[in-house]
């Protein structure tokens, strides 16, 4: 199976001023594309030649895992954001967030804390754990919670390439702006 770069669901300048056009051009056009290219170069002749990304995330190791998971993670991240973001969750997701974290505000604080304190490169995740409960977790590098049987609901990329052109060392500022881009209609549908 040949992997391809999914289309970005909005223009590269659509998330300004929170995430710049330049950042998205590199992040989507270069980093995401490179993971796709690397994966396509790596899988021929391996048992993952015809595998889908989810299988790769659950079963592969080393470079195939890293590139496969990074393809999936970026697609998921970009499709959680939109120019109509910054709203609040509604319906069953809002209820589940209140149950798990007390309130939407408390959830945001806890998620931001996880994203801020992940040391090095990686991802902060809101997941449905094996018991069906919402949970916030951190994963290093290409880490993806599906590998541990959890279902991703939302993610924030905290590799420095996700924010360095716009915010440099100020990761907390990026995370604050990230909330202005999260489209809870999309995230709620996933849930």
């Amino acid at each position, binding site marked *: 199976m040949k992997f391809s770069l999914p289309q970005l669901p909005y223009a590269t300048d659509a998330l300004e001023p929170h995430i710049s056009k330049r950042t998205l051009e590199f992040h989507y056009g270069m980093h995401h594309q490179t993971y796709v290219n690397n994966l396509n170069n790596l899988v021929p002749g391996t048992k993952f030649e015809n595998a889908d990304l989810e299988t790769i995330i659950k079963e592969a190791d080393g470079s195939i895992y890293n590139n496969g998971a990074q393809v999936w993670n970026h697609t998921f991240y970009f499709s959680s954001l939109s120019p109509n973001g910054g709203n609040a969750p509604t319906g069953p997701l809002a209820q589940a967030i209140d149950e798990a974290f007390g309130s939407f505000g408390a959830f945001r604080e806890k998620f931001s804390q996880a994203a801020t304190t992940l040391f090095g490169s990686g991802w902060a995740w809101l997941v449905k754990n094996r018991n069906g409960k919402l949970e916030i977790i951190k994963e290093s590098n*290409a880490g993806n919670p599906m590998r541990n049987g959890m279902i991703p609901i939302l993610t924030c990329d905290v590799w420095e390439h996700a924010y*360095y052109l716009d915010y440099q*060392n100020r990761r907390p500022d990026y995370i604050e702006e990230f909330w202005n881009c999260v489209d809870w209609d999309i995230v709620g549908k996933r849930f």
Partner: protein
Amino acid sequence: MAFELPKLDYAYDALEPYIDARTMEIHHTKHHGGYTSKLNAAIEGSDLDGKSIEELLANVSRHSTAVRNNGGGYYNHNLFWKVMAPDAGGKPEGELLAAIEKEFGSFDQFKETFNNAAATRFGSGWAWLVKQNNGKLVVGSTPNQDNPLMDVSELKGTPILGLDVWEHAYYLKYQNKRPEYIDAFWNVVNWDEVARRFETT
């Protein structure tokens, strides 16, 4: 006694065009400065207060994650600034060159091995030229702010040359092109300092 952020031996723009002034300033004042203050906060008032950075790293498995991450970040950047200089680059000489040629075949083969270690470190980390306890040179990499002095590190020995491949080290100028940053690095390697570390280790 608190650890202090060392001053650089050269101006922020001194490594231009290979490493730009803005990157140097943010890297030194914000990133290195951040590791320094967080390391001090992590050890203040504890029985670790007063120990040398080398002592802290040698037994880092017994300390908190904050000491590992920030102690590593403090030490690694101290070394990084010293092994670079303006009007530097070129080749090592004397004993160090002989040791490199003995271990890697040639200086160019050593560079290729080091470049590969730096380019393939996935995520954040460092590439190193290390002098092992038996005197042999070895090239490798460590994740995040780990280093070969740490008891938790697979790669062990005394680092004599280090290259920061966290994205913050190169993203403003090179973005996704880490290999171009690695190539540029060779133009600012301070081989006199690397040789001094090799000879005194």
